[in-house]
């Protein structure tokens, strides 16, 4: 059974007044099936219907047409809400609560018992790196810290489905990597994750499957590995070659009419450089120079 099943989902918004009244179709005949235990990425430019789709899945927006079910029950059903965690695009929380109180509050909303709330709160505060800041009010948090607490609240009730709108927005590279690791762990435990992100590198790294929306329509869907694989090209990476070896290899490729680019030295990723620099700095206890 698919955790999320949407059929012919349509959402139209109407501007109500006078001659300027018009209908905007935010989502058009969207079919979506998200199987259990997968990390599913919903991609698309701004205004493509991602957040509208998410709100319909959560039962916070009523579809104009079509159906959407979550965990086998209609979206918005209390049973669906009970097993769904949600983090919106912007972390909007009660800034007068501490991080710990925020999680406790959400636990109460989900009807969790006191002992469970305490245990899960401690667990997630540790997991999101917020343990030391747990007694501070959210008003004193940075954007990234608030995002981590937002993520923790979405995971608090051990939901079967987690819906995350831009989960890594506002996080530094360290937090970004921690969140990606956390999502992988959560998915490994059988939880299904639906996420949107504009950071395509994150999506490529963490998602099993993606759908691309454009103007409210789904224009592409598939497994990430399949979609990103290029079967018409082959890449090699070798130790550094001497001039003679390099010339011989090029001559061979030309002789056999094999098209190629390069050779060139491969580049590391900026993320890898960032972490290597931090690790090096931690090892030497000094600053970084270029």
């Amino acid at each position, binding site marked *: 059974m698919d955790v999320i099943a949407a059929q012919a989902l349509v959402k139209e918004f109407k501007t109500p007044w006078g001659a300027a009244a018009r209908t905007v179709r935010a989502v058009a005949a969207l079919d979506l099936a998200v199987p259990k235990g997968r990390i599913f990425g919903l991609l698309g430019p701004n205004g493509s219907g991602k957040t509208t789709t998410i709100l319909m899945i*959560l*039962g*916070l*927006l*009523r579809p104009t047409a079509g159906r959407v079910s979550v965990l086998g029950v209609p979206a*918005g059903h*209390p*049973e669906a*809400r*009970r097993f*769904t965690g*949600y983090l*919106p695009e*912007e972390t*909007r*929380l*009660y800034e*007068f*609560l501490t991080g710990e*109180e925020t999680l406790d*509050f*959400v636990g*109460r*909303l*989900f*009807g969790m018992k006191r002992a469970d709330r305490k245990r899960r709160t401690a667990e997630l505060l540790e997991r999101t790196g917020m343990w030391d800041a747990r007694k501070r*009010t959210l008003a004193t948090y940075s954007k990234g810290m608030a995002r981590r607490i937002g993520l923790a*609240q979405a995971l608090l009730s051990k939901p079967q489905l987690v819906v995350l709108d831009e989960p890594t927005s506002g996080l530094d590279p360290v937090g970004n990597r921690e969140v990606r690791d956390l999502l992988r762990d959560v998915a490994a435990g059988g939880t299904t994750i639906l996420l949107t992100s504009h950071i395509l590198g994150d999506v490529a790294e963490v998602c099993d499957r993606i759908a691309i929306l454009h103007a409210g329509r789904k224009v592409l869907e598939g497994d990430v590995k399949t979609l990103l694989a290029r079967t018409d090209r082959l890449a090699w990476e070798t130790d550094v070659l001497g001039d003679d070896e390099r010339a011989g290899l090029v001559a061979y490729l030309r002789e056999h009419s094999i098209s190629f680019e390069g050779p060139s030295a491969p580049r590391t990723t900026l993320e890898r450089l960032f972490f290597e620099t931090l690790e090096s700095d931690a090892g030497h206890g000094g600053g970084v120079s270029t």
Partner: protein
Amino acid sequence: MLGTAAAFRLRWLEARRRGGLWLVLGTALLVFWVAWRGGDSVGGRFGFAGDIAGLFTFALAIFFGAFPLAVDRERRRAYLASASPASPLGWTFGNVLGAAATAALAGFFLHGAAAAGAAAGGGIETFEMTRIGSAARTLWLPDAPRRIRIEVPADAHSLRARPVVYARVAEEGSSGRASVFVGQDEVEIVHERPWTTSITPPFVELGSADPAFAVGVPLASIRALGAPRSFLANALRAAVAPAIVAAGVAALAVAAAAHLTAGVAALTVIVLVLLGALKPFVLDSLAEERGAIAAAPGAAAAADRAPAAARAFVKGALFVVPDLTRANLRARVIAGEWLRGRAWRHPAVMTGICLILGTLLGAWGVHRRRTT
């Protein structure tokens, strides 16, 4: 109901962390100071400070009730409850309870501060309005050397304590000699002080010896200056009823906020309070209407009471009454006369109705906004 405990605790913490309780404390100190340093004139001390307390109680009840839900929506954090399995009814009920608790606390402290300040200043003016003739209870006239037993019904609690008997002087210009009647029974006056001969004007016509007036007027009044020994009782008596009423107002504010923006919600509740409780009742202008209501005894005259109350309502609507507490008190006393014998006129019952109504209307608004 899922969500009630979460909402209640949230609102309580919100009131504490956002300075709501400091606001109450600060206002209570102001009220205390006014009552303490206020003049000794008739209507001074507790009267003026009590009016300030009443004004701020209503303002804070509306503030605590109207803003949280609306601000949640405007700051787009309502999703926390909306996307959770908490029921709209449970969530709203928790909000109503939280707002009612903080408003009741504000009402209690502000009115208690008024009474305490007046006591610290040398005496408390206490007033109570009531109908005559039901179960008796004993009131203290605290600066009297002994107790005076006055027939005042036990259901006479109102917005704040007002021990009331009917009093009139025996003869016009009779140099301070006065008689106090409860119904048709004369009560012995121990102290013959000026204030005993000039008791609250609407209830007394100096020099009138018409016993029918005494019998017919359903309300009786006496003012007592309280001595320190009755301070706590007076403070409690002054504070409990406003606290209850404030809870009801806060509940209505929550309901309004569930449907409207914070500002419109506050305005709506203020208008409701003014229309529902204040408009008909302008202090001295009501003597005629009160007389008309009272002069129509028995079931046969019930039809006459409604027009009289309606006239009072219209007349009151022409005035803006700054004295919220007193006006509200009189509102309910007159409504009580009109609705004599109907238990739901009691402030606690009315507040209970407000809590239920606030929850149901609010839950409807929360549900309506949850899925658009």
